[in-house]
């Protein structure tokens, strides 16, 4: 257990170093949010028309 704690501390240290070199979290967060917004826009275009009927009629029997 002690060794695991040590290793986890090491990896935390490593990632702290990385954090210093990347843009501030807010900017990163903005970028992620923009990507997610784009994804959600696209989803609206391809999503099955009648969600309730689509979900209800999807029945699979006899699987392993």
């Amino acid at each position: 257990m002690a060794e695991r704690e040590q290793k986890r501390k090491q990896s935390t240290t490593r990632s702290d170093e990385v954090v210093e070199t990347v843009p501030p979290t807010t900017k990163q967060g903005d970028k992620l949010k923009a990507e997610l917004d784009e994804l959600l826009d696209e989803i609206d275009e391809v999503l099955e028309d009648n969600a309730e009927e689509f979900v209800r009629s999807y029945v699979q029997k006899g699987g392993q």
Partner: protein
Amino acid sequence: MAIRKVLGIETEYGIILRGADSNPITVSSLLINAYVSALARQASAGNNKVGWDFEDESPGRDARGFAREGAMAPEIETHLVNAVLTNGARYYVDHAHPEYSTPECSDALEAVLWDKAGERILARSIEAAGEVLPAGQEIVVYKNNSDRKGNSYGCHENYLLDRAVPFARLASQITPHFVSRQIYTGAGKVGSEAAGIGPDRVPFQLTQRAEFFEEEVGLETTLKRPLVNTRDEPHSDSQRYRRLHVIVGDANLAEISTFLKVGVTALVLSMIEDDELAGLDLTLAAPVQAHRIVSYDLSLATPLEMADGRRMTALEMQWELLDRAKKYAESRGLESVGVEVGRDLLDRWEAVLHALETDYLSLAGQLDWVAKYQMVSGYRERHHLGWGDHKLAALDLQYHDVRPGRSLYEKCGLERLFTEEAVVSAITNPPTTTRAYFRGRCLQKWAGSIAAANWDSLVFDLGTDPLRRVPMMEPLRGTAAHVDRLLQQCETPAQLLEALGST
């Protein structure tokens, strides 16, 4: 020393026909027939269908040393479509689903590639079926494991093990890994299918399959499913090998999820084989319940009861296994999982555990459950929906749609381990590193002379009695290095058989 972890993935796909009432077995047959017929037309070589040979199959044999009463080769299903492809894979109707079994792969990276090729084969099959179906009808296929109504279908992994490993040790040491690995192998599911558990209690869970497991160890695969399946059917020399048939996992679309699922499991199995997990007691007090708790736990912080009274989270269990694996890599090497692949595996495993611990949403570009969770929660917030809304269930299903343009997995843009060119090549070409190479190349060259194929043999029909069976009992023989020159030298299957000494 642990033997090479030859591995493969079998996936039962969900299937529906839109625009008509249908029987799923008929639709699955139609789908696969359409693909195989289209291939035959392309090859313009007449009948390219090569059937599967069931002679050596015995799924009722139990690894604990007894045979189930009445167990027999599944002759009843031989009338169903059952094709062997030139990439060495098997493509067939199993129960009421189309199923694709990858060829035997020699490492986790290859398994990712031929598993992804399977998705493309299903997508191409849908196109081929579209050409023969009446207007207004369409087949749609999903790579998932549940219809959200309590019916599940599997994605099974297979690993080659040394027969000498005692099965009891194997079962007890692999169980903690199966329970805890869900934190990166899960494909995600909106809600729960268990009786009485509503969206308030479980809005979203890590896996598709956890709710369908009721036993710790057993032979069943369709009801009372066990965490450790005891099917003992090595499809190779049964004196030397065991094939561990793993039924507990989800079907993954994310390549990193698949890579970690089969790669880490292969590595843990190597450690068990070399008895390197002795002294690391991760035995759970109640593995079946723990399995479900992990799947339901979006905080990744719920402690599980251990048999010795300790409490550990799934993450802590995975850190322990990773520590052991690093020591194992130093002391015994990584040959059994491939040295390069093994190193990459250790790095990715550690990075993923670290990210799960600190900020799991940062894995939305890598793991299925995180990608799905981010997409579904984002959609829910934008449209102010409750977790029980049908639209979220629809998003969940459509994440797994294999049609390009409709697949929400594709829209999520997850990290790839291979180029699309490599995937397309794997649709028709076998891995070079296992006996699948011999099977695939023979089918490419002489499909018209192969009467039947199986994992461990090819049966040639040269037009003269009797049929000639070429046994392939060693999964690592028949590789490109072994047989490429021979196959190039032979123009006819008769020459091949003569060279192999089978005539």
